[in-house]
């Protein structure tokens, strides 16, 4: 199925795309539209755009919303959601020292890639690595 989001993806959408490919829709195809563009392409599920189903909810990142909507219970994914939350949104409580670093690296990936498809490809390496390492740690 097709998924659509605004171009210039960052930390949250890189995480979402990785999650979609790994856990929700292995055949996922991603489309990118300019920020704010309306209407969104038909037949594609939008994510991380204000007002759509998969978006920020109650101050939490879209990755978090996706875990809830797809009822994914893996505690490691929830730990990643916490990290993405702290990297992507304004949070009073900071429990994840990896968060600011992850944001920085994701911004760096964006600036070294020719397009958003490449960003998602490289971003998935980061999240795969993050997952593998968190799996070794006590939650």
């Amino acid at each position, binding site marked *: 199925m097709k998924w659509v989001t605004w171009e*210039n993806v*960052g930390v949250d959408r890189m995480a979402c795309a990785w999650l979609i490919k790994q856990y929700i829709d292995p055949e996922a195809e991603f489309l990118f539209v300019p920020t704010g563009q309306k209407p969104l392409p038909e037949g594609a599920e939008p994510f991380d755009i*204000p*007002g759509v189903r998969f*978006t*920020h*909810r*109650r*101050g939490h990142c879209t990755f978090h919303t996706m875990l809830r909507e797809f009822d994914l219970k893996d505690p490691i994914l929830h730990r990643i959601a916490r990290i993405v939350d702290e990297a992507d*949104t*304004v949070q*009073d409580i*900071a429990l994840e020292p990896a968060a*600011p670093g992850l944001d920085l690296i994701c911004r760096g990936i964006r600036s070294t890639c020719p397009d958003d498809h490449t960003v998602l490809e490289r971003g998935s390496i980061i999240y795969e690595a993050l997952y593998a390492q968190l799996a070794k740690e006590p939650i």
Partner: protein
Amino acid sequence: MQTWMSLFYKLPPEPTSKRVYVWRKLKRLGAILLHDAVWILPSTPRTLEQFQWLAAEIAEMGGEAYLTESRFVLTGQEEALKKQFIEQVDKVYAEILGELEREDADLTSLSKRYQQVRTQNYFQSDLDKKVREALLSEKGGIES
């Protein structure tokens, strides 16, 4: 010339927790409230994104928010506002420097405060470097 973002919003009077929540987020971003009416931040990809999500959140809470980008027309006003942004972070930087002079300074919490205030350092306060150097020299001055 600098582009600025303005957020105008209205929330239902109750529950007050939501109003406090939004206000805290705005303070956390280092936004400045002008004339009790509009919250302003310099436009950067990060502030744009954060303001955008905050506007969406306000709508989610049953409120209404307008987000605009603008430039100053009258000379001097922009400089005055930049100064206000710098003063706001300088106050915190100065507090950290003051705390660092104490024998029993809590370096962990001061480093955390430094990291937080840095995210609001939109116009490169001179004190930023000073605080960083002071913190590093407390840790044994490896960089010197």
